[in-house]
């Protein structure tokens, strides 16, 4: 059982790290501001989610696990909204592209 859980952790964390890589590559390679915004928000939130999923079996207790999940939810919500605000400011010309 422990080995199985460890394999699960390693797989999920590696997958998460891959999405962080994808987010950075997207940020560096995508052609314009809006696509870059899209790349970092989606890929990084997914990466963080996978890493946290992988770490859940290692959490010291249910409260710790709950905290980990709420960190992810917070990043998810605030990241998505901030990105939308940035995108809107760019479209209205408040921010320089």
């Amino acid at each position, binding site marked *: 059982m422990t080995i199985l859980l*460890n394999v699960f*952790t*390693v797989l999920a*964390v*590696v997958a*998460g*790290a891959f999405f*962080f*890589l994808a*987010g*950075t590559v997207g*940020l*560096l390679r995508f052609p314009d*501001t809006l696509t*870059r*915004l899209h790349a*970092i*928000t989606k890929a*990084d*939130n997914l*990466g*963080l989610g996978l*890493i*946290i999923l992988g*770490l859940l079996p*290692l*959490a*010291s207790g249910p409260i*710790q696990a709950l*905290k*980990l999940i*709420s*960190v992810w939810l*917070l*990043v998810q919500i*605030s*990241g998505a*909204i*901030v*990105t939308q*605000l*940035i995108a809107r*400011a*760019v479209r*209205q010309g*408040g*921010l*320089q*592209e």
Partner: protein
Amino acid sequence: MTSFLVGTAGFVLGMAALGLFGIFLRPSETDRLMAAQLLGTDSIAGLVLLSITTETPSIVDVALMLALLAAFAAVAFVRSATSGGESNVAEETRHL
């Protein structure tokens, strides 16, 4: 397992560094703001990994704090970017 997770934390922060160096060479405000966002998410991931590896539960609290407040600074910026150029008088009438 411990060095694997620490290594992943290093990798994630390395990705943030790569993104930062790529972005800071571009002359775009939005890209720079994005790079700060990227660093925020990556730091949170790094902290969560370090919390598990060092078995210090309070580090997750630091991650929680960053998750709450990193967005806050960006909101403050977007607000100023959309209203900063206006004169005081225009804003005053808006409030009345």
